[in-house]
């Protein structure tokens, strides 16, 4: 049946207009994958440096100016390390989990307006899509831990699932707040609405606090790093991963940090909006860096909870506060 190469070449030449190239480039390079990877490494550097300075130490120093290339160096080092797949583990899941864990935050980030208020893929209801991917991430975490057979990762994955039960509902409730205020379920409209009126943090401060706490739990940062509690269960669900898989997992976690800080910036701090001459992307970067530093600060001042304390704490305190926030908005207080 032989492929007619000439026809295929002709077809590509015809399709390859400048417009498709630009959109391809915007997906692959600028506000797309490459840029987000670079952003992920940068934010990991910001987080590690700020966290270190809070603890009165230097943090990464020697790779690049002020150690800025350290996350990249770690990534490349892990790529070169031996990649063990346990023979007793569930091979398919064990290999796919890191890939999903990286892909999910990456695709979700396209929904958030970065370059300018009109992000490349924006549709009505992408806020629900973001919430859905957060749940998917935790399911991938659960499958990753469950498929690697060691008991530490199994306990870690069960704890990750339990913790999700805790923060999922308050987060869902609280994220709806800005949507109600902006009368739309699209992050792009929420950003546009905020550029016309006040930032959402001034209108719904309670929502901001609850969202930050829930994102801390979603990112498994210290007060809620029970699924990978270093002193109890070695590295929790990530214990059995090594080499390339671990590199993907770490990059996935950095992207999740970018996603979380982008969500905080877009929903509550006005996202990437025009501010007389400064291009919106710089505004976006400043706000997300602030969000990363806020998360890092919270990570530094708490000890780790126990899983039963997290669940009871979430259900007894966070859920009522989230419903209170919704009630306040209905009463017209939230904008």
């Amino acid at each position, binding site marked *: 049946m032989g492929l007619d190469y000439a026809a295929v070449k002709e077809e590509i030449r015809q399709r390859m207009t400048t417009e498709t190239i630009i959109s391809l480039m915007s997906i692959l390079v600028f506000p797309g994958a490459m840029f987000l990877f670079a952003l992920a490494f940068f934010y990991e550097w910001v987080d590690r440096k700020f966290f*270190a300075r809070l603890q009165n130490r*230097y943090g990464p120093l020697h790779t690049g100016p002020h150690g800025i290339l350290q996350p990249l160096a770690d990534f490349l080092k892990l790529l070169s390390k031996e990649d063990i797949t346990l023979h007793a583990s569930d091979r398919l899941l064990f290999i796919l989990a890191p890939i999903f864990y990286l892909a999910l935050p990456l695709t979700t980030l396209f929904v958030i307006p970065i370059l300018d208020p009109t992000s490349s893929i924006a549709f009505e209801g992408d806020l629900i899509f973001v919430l859905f991917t957060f749940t998917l991430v935790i399911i991938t975490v659960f499958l990753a831990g469950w498929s690697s057979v060691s008991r530490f990762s199994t306990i870690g994955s069960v704890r990750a699932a339990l913790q999700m039960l805790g923060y999922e509902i308050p987060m869902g409730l609280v994220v709806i707040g800005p949507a109600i205020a902006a009368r739309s379920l699209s992050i792009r409209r929420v950003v546009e609405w905020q550029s016309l009126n006040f930032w959402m943090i001034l209108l719904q401060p309670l929502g901001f606090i609850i969202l930050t706490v829930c994102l801390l739990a979603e990112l498994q940062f210290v007060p809620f790093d029970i699924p990978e509690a270093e002193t109890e269960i070695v590295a929790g669900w990530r214990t059995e991963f090594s080499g390339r898989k671990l590199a993907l997992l770490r990059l996935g976690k950095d992207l999740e940090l970018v996603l979380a800080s982008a969500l905080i910036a877009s929903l509550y701090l006005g996202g990437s909006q025009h501010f007389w001459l400064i291009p919106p992307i710089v505004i976006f970067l400043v706000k997300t860096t602030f969000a990363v530093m806020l998360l890092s600060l919270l990570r530094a001042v708490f000890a780790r909870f126990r899983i039963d304390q997290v669940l009871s704490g979430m259900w007894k305190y966070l859920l009522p506060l989230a419903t209170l926030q919704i009630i306040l908005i209905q009463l017209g207080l939230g904008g």
Partner: protein
Amino acid sequence: MAFLKEALKQLFRRPATLKYPYEKLTVPKDFRGRPIWDIKKCIGCGLCPEVCPSRAIEMIGKGLEAEIKHYVDRCMFCGQCAEICPKNAIRMSEEYELSGFDRSKMIYEYKRDH
């Protein structure tokens, strides 16, 4: 949240950690580093190999012809040899960076110049 104030204060203080090996701490006066033999003062009495708890000193020959072999990888810097030496031929130096890759290079020989 009681810890927040303290944590933020640290932001403006110089980090307490040291950029070793670029910056090095100065070692106090009589620090117990690697023991150094002054072979001219040594009369080969054989007290130091006998008293060394980890048998890190080996003496070849006797009396004024004695030569010392010091195994730094076995030495624990307790300073007992410097203390017991009747002629004060052993001095605890300030060297503490003694790690290496090859144990055979960690033997210091003190020969008599004939």
